[in-house]
């Protein structure tokens, strides 16, 4: 018992020194790399142990990747999916933000449309996709529209929350100094909504690309979703994983090189200590 307690306090006394000293010097980048390498190792070991066609090893997946990359096929399908994701994302953000801001600023409208919103939030993605294809045909507009419609209610809810928290004081200031409607929107309203745009696009991008694959699987003849369906019928798990990982890599690249720098830029006025 006494030993226990002693080692416990000793351990705690050591903690700050090692915790504060080693981890930051190693750097968060390296931690990420080590963590991903660990995941890869587990997969590899599991694949070797299982020794089965349905759980390929990392080299087998890499091979599938090179095979389709060399023909250019992989990049074509990635590009098609990315095009749909981007189009649906822009569409959903614009429409969802406009509706959300209107509902947040207008109590009566919000009371009336709130049930609609709850309804749309609860319609399964699959239903929207199937109905879109039935009503509008198996075409690109129906596909992109279906993805966007799935995302719009989320954007509306987030931006509505943002519009409710708009600062009355600043709005009054803008009125006294006779800001035009455009000036008020651009310099007073939108900057306040920036965190809500960020939140909506964060959850948005990951949700949208998952839905995009289903849309492609059901009614398109190209894109990552179409390819995955194809390889599913061939039972080619290595290719399925190759396509999945490739697209995840595309999305992470967008996150690191587009989303995060943009966010850092648009929040540069915040006191530094408030940032994590």
């Amino acid at each position: 018992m006494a030993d226990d307690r002693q080692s416990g306090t000793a351990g705690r006394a050591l903690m700050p020194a090692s915790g504060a000293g080693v981890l930051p010097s190693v750097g968060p980048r390296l931690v990420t790399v080590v963590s991903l390498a660990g995941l890869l190792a587990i997969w590899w070991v599991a694949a070797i142990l299982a020794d089965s066609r349905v759980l390929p090893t990392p080299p087998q997946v890499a091979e599938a990747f090179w095979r389709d990359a060399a023909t250019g096929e992989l990049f074509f399908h990635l590009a098609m999916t990315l095009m749909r994701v981007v189009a649906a994302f822009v569409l959903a953000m614009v429409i969802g933000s406009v509706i959300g801001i209107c509902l947040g600023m207008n109590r009566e409208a919000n009371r009336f449309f709130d049930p609609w919103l709850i309804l749309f939030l609860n319609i399964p993605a699959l239903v929207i996709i199937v109905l879109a294809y039935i009503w509008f045909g198996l075409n690109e507009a129906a596909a992109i529209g279906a993805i966007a419609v799935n995302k719009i209610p989320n954007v509306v809810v987030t931006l509505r929350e943002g519009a409710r928290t708009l600062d009355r004081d600043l709005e009054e200031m803008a009125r006294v100094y006779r800001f035009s409607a455009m000036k008020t929107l651009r310099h007073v309203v939108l900057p306040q909504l920036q965190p809500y745009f960020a939140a909506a696009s964060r959850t948005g991008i990951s949700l949208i690309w998952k839905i995009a694959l289903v849309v492609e699987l059901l009614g398109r003849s190209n894109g990552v979703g179409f390819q995955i369906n194809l390889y599913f019928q061939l039972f080619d798990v290595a290719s399925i994983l190759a396509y999945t990982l490739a697209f995840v890599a595309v999305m992470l690249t967008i996150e690191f090189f587009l989303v995060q720098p943009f966010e850092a830029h648009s929040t540069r006025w915040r006191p530094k200590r408030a940032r994590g």
Partner: protein
Amino acid sequence: MSNLSKPIPPAGGPNALEVDIRAKTFRGADGEDVRAIEAIAFSVAPASFATLIGPSGCGKTTTLRIILGLDREFSGSLKLPDSGGRVAAVFQEPRLLPWRTVDDNVRLVLSDEEADGDLDDLFEILGLAEMRSRYPAELSLGLARRVALARAFAIRPSLMVLDEPFVSLDEQTATRLRALLTNVWSARPTTAVMVTHNLREAVELSDRIIFLTERPARVRGVYEIDKPRAERDSRWREATLTSIAKRYSGIL
């Protein structure tokens, strides 16, 4: 300096500001009516400085909001110095846009033609020359208040409304800011209404002091000051304070 001390087209509007609020009632959240103002009537001559003094919660901010046109639900009438002229406000809080630099905060209130104009003199006189590229979060309250003043003066308003612009500053900073306000305002006098709790401040800055009663507010009395600001030394101030305190008991 040059810009501000040069002879400039007459500041303020051609008319006096005339406020005549007969009644102002708020509907509270519990549905009960709160009478904020019973009757407040006063006028402010063109290019003169008036101060409202009254107990906390008596309806001073409400009066200013009515003058600013932010609250139109009152009975009574209002005549602005210049119907088309611009109105500037310095609120109880600085109300700067946190995502804009000091310079942008001031420029944003200017019309598109003026927006590229030269503001060096204004920033210089208010001691903000070094601060122009900072964001409001990096400013102390005293500095933020100065930016709010700069913004108000930048538009060369025909009416200026100030709501306790120096509250919750230490006395030294407040004194400096009062001197700055006197300077900028004297360079281009415009019709001004200020609310304060500080009688010294009022005596230093005003041409006319309007005393208000407890809520619901009525005008308790009006005190006129004719002495030019430059001649208001500390002896004169003490004497004036004493005579006001004698006239309006409980005011100090």
